[in-house]
């Protein structure tokens, strides 16, 4: 790690997204590219309780949080997840990131009903790492493509329009072909409006074993932030709540220096971009955010007029 004094710092511009790592690092799958090495046996981070989530939701109001994300591990392993999602929908829009292999109809019925009672969207983001078992299963495990596709069919039957996210394990120039094939596959499974999001690989956790980690030169230097719109970085507009405190972002929870405090107020301080993964965020923008909430980099504020007075 480089010296903190040489790091580029990013301020919290506003707490737009609040992440809850509700299942800790516990997952029913053991994907070979998982950036926090989640598995059935990884207890580094534990489950959040419903009370934990409720108290942070209350605290989040004064921060003007725009939307809430629920992740893990596999969030649906937490027995209180459905109640947490229903509660959060009373505060704002909610997104849950799942592998869609453990869904139950009764949960989806309750969640759809809760969504329809208020004005906010409940988004399901389903991780499937390619349009066929040959691409997906070597990474996510034997038979997981079929199981996840069954989960997508289940979500569609319950009226959801899941966003399928895939980590790119192919050359960038093949994106269009992969997206095209995936759209066809999803349509064959009843998903008539396929929504797809490609994520860059994060060279952390299990991925380091599968391929490689970040090289020492892959760091964001202070000079690289000159003229750069730092609101493109997730650390400028989000924080992640875990059972071990609040961390800077959902990617770095098990990395040194990423712990920011126990309350939201304590996390309102600049974060040094000391990690290789910060370079991925720098290159690709806030990859963790939904497409509906991303914004294009843009020059600063334009002048305000006094017209119409």
């Amino acid at each position: 790690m480089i010296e903190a004094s040489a790091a580029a710092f990013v301020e919290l511009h506003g707490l737009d997204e609040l992440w809850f790592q509700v299942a800790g690092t516990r997952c029913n799958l053991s994907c070979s590219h998982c950036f926090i090495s989640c598995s059935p046996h990884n207890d580094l981070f534990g489950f959040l309780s419903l009370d934990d989530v409720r108290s942070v939701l209350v605290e989040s109001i004064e921060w003007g949080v725009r939307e809430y994300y629920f992740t893990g591990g596999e969030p649906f392993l937490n027995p209180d997840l459905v109640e947490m999602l229903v509660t959060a929908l009373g505060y704002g829009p909610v997104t849950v990131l799942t592998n869609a292999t453990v869904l139950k109809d009764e949960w989806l019925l309750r969640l759809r009903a809760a969504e329809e009672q208020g004005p906010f969207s409940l988004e399901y983001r389903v991780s499937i790492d390619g349009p066929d078992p040959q691409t997906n299963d070597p990474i996510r495990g034997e038979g997981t493509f079929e199981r996840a596709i069954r989960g997508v069919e289940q979500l569609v039957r319950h009226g959801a329009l899941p966003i399928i996210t895939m980590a790119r394990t192919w050359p960038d120039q093949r994106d269009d072909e992969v997206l095209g094939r995936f759209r066809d596959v999803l349509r064959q499974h009843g998903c008539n409006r396929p929504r797809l999001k490609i994520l860059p690989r994060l060279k952390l956790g299990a991925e380091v074993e599968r391929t490689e980690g970040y090289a020492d030169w892959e760091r964001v230097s202070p000079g690289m932030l000159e003229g750069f719109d730092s609101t493109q970085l997730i650390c400028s507009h989000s924080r992640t709540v875990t059972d071990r405190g609040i961390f800077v972002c959902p990617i770095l929870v098990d990395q040194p220096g990423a712990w920011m405090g126990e309350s939201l107020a304590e996390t309102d301080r600049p974060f040094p971009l000391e990690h290789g993964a910060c370079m991925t965020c720098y290159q690709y923008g806030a990859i963790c955010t939904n497409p509906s909430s991303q914004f294009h980099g843009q020059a600063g504020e334009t002048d305000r007029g006094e017209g119409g007075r």
Partner: protein
Amino acid sequence: MKLAFFGGIYNNYLALEAAIADARRRDAQDLFCLGDMGAFGPFPDRVFPLLLEAGVHCVQGNYDESIGNELPDCQCGYTDPRDNHFARLSYDYTLEHTSPDNRRWLQRLPGAIDCDREGLRLHLCHGSPRRTNEFLWESTTSDAFLDRLIDETGADLVLGTHTGLHWQRRTGQGRTFVNVGVLGRPANDGRTSVWYTLLQIQRGGRFSVEFVPVQYDHRRLAREMQQEGLPAEFVETIESGWWTTCLEVLPSRERRRGRH
């Protein structure tokens, strides 16, 4: 007093003409446009004389900033390759067909307008008060977030556009946000009409918001779009009322209301 607010003209000069006439008929005293004069439709230069002649007070949208400064793209912020493909076609056509004088006019528009009417403080922006190209969708904008954004403007009421879908919300704190809708294309509702917003303000600052559908000669617009070689997908939206492009930025709730 009544004020009329238009958003997202997208070169649809026929809808703009109809909306100006409708607002005048309803005794709107001042007309405002919250930006994005270009995109999507035919003959960009036909929009500007209508705005100027009617004395419409205009805010600069991201499209206007791009065209005005001849930037490489529209800054709409689409993330999907198909959406970006159509955005490119639309942007290249609009940039090529906007005169230098009109580009300069777009370049000089203010990014926001603050004004006071009957004691009601208004903040007019394009996307959100903090960012021209930020999407404020109804289903992905919490009340707490609206309070934060509106608080920073010092206004009672904030009006924007940018998403293409009209909606309004009064938060528990008593602040109001209105997305005034767009005149450029239908609201993904299977109807060919487009929408603008009438704001009626009484003495003391009490107000009511009305979303107004506008019928216009959409068949003529569709014909002209075809003649100009604009994508068949755009024409289909004008004729059917359903969006066919720029869909991947929609949250699930807004997306489910449409056909595609």
